[in-house]
């Protein structure tokens, strides 16, 4: 091995603590990049492959009942490649061994077997026979959650008729990668299942013989999706079309989109912070090393090493730090992405796992990490290369201190000389002091940005469950029913209170912007399900107006007082212009609210309801469910209490894990910055501090000077960190927001205090470690050493 390489390795070994502190920060960046960017790629590639192989449709539409003869007309729309018409229905399930009712979505399979689009993959057993009337294939997660194997049976209330269905097989479908039932916030595979049933049986059950109520299209490469959607809407309008939509609005797909967007957001926001801090730390440490090794650099040049060789020597030192960081990052990133893949496996149902971060992502991460270290090292390494050998052999000129306005201010403040030394040093190296402050501020910011979600979720929970939707259970009717249906529900066991509610599908337009939403209308005085305005007050939509959720209003570019066009879909195909009366706070979905009587008047109908909201006596829950399993005209039930509990559990667990991870990250950043900063200062001031000791200053006084600078900078970093944390949190909430949900920016003083506490504690700990070196300082040796 070359002597210069031996020097490199020995230097690296001597610097191990500082190198490790930097490598850990760099490793964090690599790990988060691997996890976020790697998973982003893996998820997108897996989905793309699945969609391609199983021909996931491009356009979807539901309708009330369209004749089968319409299919050729749909196929004739320019740009349409394939048309799949089918029967889709919702049923209440009686699952053996389960007290609560389940909800099933029936999807018809063409008589020939597999459809042309959204092709299910058979995972076990077989598909139902085309002629069978009581056979179904179910989605695999539903089967697994309930312990079903082919041959098992379950009972379903099919349009008022209770039938026993035999499970012939389990399947997965690209339409249901994220399987979420009506009104649920996260998948409940036990209570919600997809049932594929032969066309003939499904049509008979839902009165769709010779007709269809759902259509899926694939498009040619050259097709204009917006135009196809318009043409399809025109064709389906006379048959109660609910409005066609593209993939981006398909429920399962849009949840994956939201997850992919989050990963991308994470990959773009966090890793640059770590790489930036690493570059700064490498810069700070290497600049010091090169100052210390000035004479050695001169010597290397004197004996004939070229500028390039000297430059490379120092770049390689940074390279070694990067290498350790990369290895740490690879290990942590592989572990993290594996953990994330396991988490995804719980939520997303893919037939194959391409949940492996591809090798090129590892290569990209390594290249970025090397580039960050190289960038940090570049200035110092180039300075070493440029140093003239004759100059390098001379001791460096003492740093320039001069009296400035600030000095006069310090003098006026009558600071002690040690305090003066602290402040002068900060002024002498303003860039370094500034970057140290920024580094520590980023540690605070990471903590703030990570922990705020805890409080945000509290607000979401409170808003969703304790302010707006206070009912325990919702019953979904297969068809809108007269309000008298509410009286029947009132007689069910355990029902303490019941209120009706009407849902209407509509397309809202304002200017050139439009959005398809469900409008809710409730009879006056409804108390279980309520709309809450942006000030937190309960509001009822005034007659003849519409209330919009704040996000929906933003998407439509509408403000209170504006008039928006409301085109109702389904069987109530009329268009009205309604003024926006106010805005409603809502974090799930894009809601709109109208007065119950206004709706009934507009459609000249007797009052109708689509759902019944129930306040339940918990003791009688089992009795209620026993009755619901046999109740005709029910399309499904929603257990809000259950959703609330599973949401809280999942969130509580995830928040705990995430907080721990981010606190670790903040500590690593802090230690990286504070420890290296203090070490560099100790190295620069060893003579000065030893002189003070010789002059009679105590250890405590001398270490006060050493620790003072880092602590002053750490304190200065706090307000900046809060500000940066607020900005990162804000950009994260913006990144999380989709049509499905949004996260409010809730920052409490406790969040800031916790972040500051962690960072300041870590700073003090890091500086105390350096202080121990100061205690062991050999006064005589330091004074003798020539710099």
């Amino acid at each position, binding site marked *: 091995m070359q002597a210069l390489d*031996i020097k490199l390795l*020995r230097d690296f070994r*001597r610097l191990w603590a500082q190198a490790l502190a930097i490598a850990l920060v760099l490793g964090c960046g690599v790990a988060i990049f691997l996890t976020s960017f790697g998973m982003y790629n893996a998820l997108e590639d897996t989905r793309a492959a699945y969609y391609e192989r199983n021909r996931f449709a491009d356009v979807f539409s539901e309708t009330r009942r369209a004749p089968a003869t319409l299919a050729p007309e749909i196929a004739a729309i320019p740009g349409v490649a394939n048309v799949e018409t089918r029967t889709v229905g919702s049923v209440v399930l009686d699952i053996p061994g389960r007290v609560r009712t389940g909800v099933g979505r029936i999807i018809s399979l063409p008589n020939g077997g597999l459809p042309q689009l959204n092709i299910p993959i058979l995972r076990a057993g077989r598909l139902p026979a085309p002629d069978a009337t009581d056979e179904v294939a179910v989605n695999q997660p539903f089967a697994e959650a309930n312990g079903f194997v082919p041959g098992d049976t379950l009972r379903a209330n099919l349009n008022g008729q209770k039938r026993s269905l035999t499970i012939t097989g389990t399947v997965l479908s690209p339409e249901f990668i994220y399987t979420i039932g009506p009104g649920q916030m996260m998948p409940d595979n036990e209570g919600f299942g997809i049932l594929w049933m032969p066309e003939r049986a499904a049509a008979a059950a839902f009165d769709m013989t010779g007709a269809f109520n759902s259509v899926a299209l694939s498009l040619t490469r050259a097709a204009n999706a917006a135009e196809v959607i318009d043409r399809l809407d025109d064709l389906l309008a006379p048959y109660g079309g609910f409005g066609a939509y593209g993939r981006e609005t398909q429920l399962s797909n849009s949840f994956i989109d939201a997850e992919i967007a989050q990963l991308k957001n994470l990959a773009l926001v966090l890793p640059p912070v770590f790489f930036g801090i690493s570059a700064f730390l490498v810069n700070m440490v290497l600049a010091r090393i090169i100052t210390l090794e000035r*004479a050695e650099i001169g010597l290397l*040049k004197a*004996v004939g090493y070229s500028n390039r*060789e000297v430059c490379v020597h120092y770049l390689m030192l940074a390279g070694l730090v990067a290498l350790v960081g990369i290895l740490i990052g690879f290990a942590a990133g592989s572990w993290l992405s594996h953990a994330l893949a396991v988490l995804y496996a719980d939520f997303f149902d893919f037939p194959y796992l391409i949940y492996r971060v591809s090798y090129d992502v590892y290569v990209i991460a390594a290249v970025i990490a090397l580039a960050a270290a190289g960038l940090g090292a570049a200035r110092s390494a180039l300075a070493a290369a440029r140093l003239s*050998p*004759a100059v390098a*052999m001379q001791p460096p000129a003492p740093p320039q201190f001069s009296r400035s306005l600030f000095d006069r201010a310090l003098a006026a403040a009558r600071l002690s000389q040690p305090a003066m030394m602290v402040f002068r040093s900060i002024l002498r190296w303003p860039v370094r002091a500034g970057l140290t402050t920024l580094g520590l501020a980023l540690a605070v910011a990471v903590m703030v940005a990570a922990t705020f979600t805890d409080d945000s979720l509290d607000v979401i929970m409170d808003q969703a469950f304790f302010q707006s939707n206070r009912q325990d259970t919702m019953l979904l009717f297969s068809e809108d029913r007269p309000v008298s249906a509410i009286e029947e529900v009132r007689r069910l066991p355990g029902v303490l209170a019941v209120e009706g509610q009407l849902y209407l599908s509509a397309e809202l337009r304002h200017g050139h912007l439009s959005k398809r939403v469900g409008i809710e209308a409730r009879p006056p005085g409804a108390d279980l399900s309520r709309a809450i305005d942006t000030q937190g007050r309960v509001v009822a939509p005034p007659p003849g107006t519409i209330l919009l959720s704040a996000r929906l209003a933003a998407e439509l570019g509408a403000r209170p007082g504006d008039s928006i066009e409301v085109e109702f879909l389904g069987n109530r195909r009329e268009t009205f212009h309604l003024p926006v009366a106010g805005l409603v706070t809502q974090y799930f979905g894009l809601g709109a609210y109208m007065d119950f009587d206004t709706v009934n008047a507009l459609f000249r109908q007797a009052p109708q309801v689509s759902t019944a909201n129930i306040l339940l006596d918990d003791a009688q829950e089992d009795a209620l469910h026993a009755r619901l399993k046999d109740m005709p005209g029910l399309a499904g039930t929603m257990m809000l209490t259950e959703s609330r509990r599973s949401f809280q559990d999942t969130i509580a667990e995830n928040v705990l894990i995430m907080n721990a991870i981010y606190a670790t990250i903040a500590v690593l950043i802090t230690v990286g910055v504070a420890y290296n900063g203090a070490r560099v200062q100790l190295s620069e001031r060893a003579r000065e501090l030893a002189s003070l000791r010789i002059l009679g200053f105590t250890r405590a006084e001398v270490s006060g000077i050493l620790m003072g600078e880092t602590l002053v900078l750490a304190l200065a970093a706090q307000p900046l960190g809060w500000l940066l944390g607020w900005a990162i949190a804000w950009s994260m909430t913006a990144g999380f927001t989709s049509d499905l949900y949004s996260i409010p920016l809730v920052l409490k003083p406790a969040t800031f205090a916790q972040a500051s506490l962690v960072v300041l504690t870590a700073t003090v700990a890091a500086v105390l470690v350096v202080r121990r070196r100061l205690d062991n300082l050999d006064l005589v040796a330091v004074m003798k050493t020539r710099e």
Partner: protein
Amino acid sequence: MDRPIFRTEGVTKVYDTGGAKVHALAGVDLELFAGELAVLLGPSGSGKSTLLNILGGLDRVSSGKVWFRDLDLTALRDRGLTRYRRDHVGFVFQFYNLVPSLSARENVQLVTDVARDPMDPAEALGLVGLSHRIDHFPAEMSGGEQQRVAIARAIAKRPEVLLCDEPTGALDSKTGVQVLEALKDINDRFGTTTVVITHNAAIRKMAHRVVRFHDGRISGVEVNDTRLAPHEIAW
């Protein structure tokens, strides 16, 4: 001692230290011959170190010419000077300038790694009487031993010239003599042109020629008819 190995013509060196111009060399014409041991003598600030740096290719002239044999050092760019130092020159410094993280052998190896026809590091250390300290680190050696490692490092590449800047400046008289013995031994054995700069007048007695410096100029050159061995010198 017939052919000049170094020749300088009207060499000046001006340092610009923030407004005040310092004339470190104010026109130096000098010839140094192959195989000779020359002592450049003068008080500090007289310009002798500046000249040594220029001869060694560590620094550049402000005006004038410097030849190493037929090579015009003043015409060389950075890369050429590096090549020149690597191939022809050995340096010994007042403060040894050893790399503290490398052992004696490795410090010598630092040079043999990049030289064209080097000797074995162990051999070079043997020449300065340090075979028994070969794996010791600088911190484990005395000043005299460290300087002898530096000499071993300088001669390991078999240089044509050995440039020594106050080689005994940081040493006491006794260890200083040991170092000078080592330098004389190399000069006698290999005929390496050796230039020693010092402000210690006693050392002049071991030289073939003594060049005196004063205020950036040569104030006199004398030839020693009878040289003393280092152990006969004391200060």
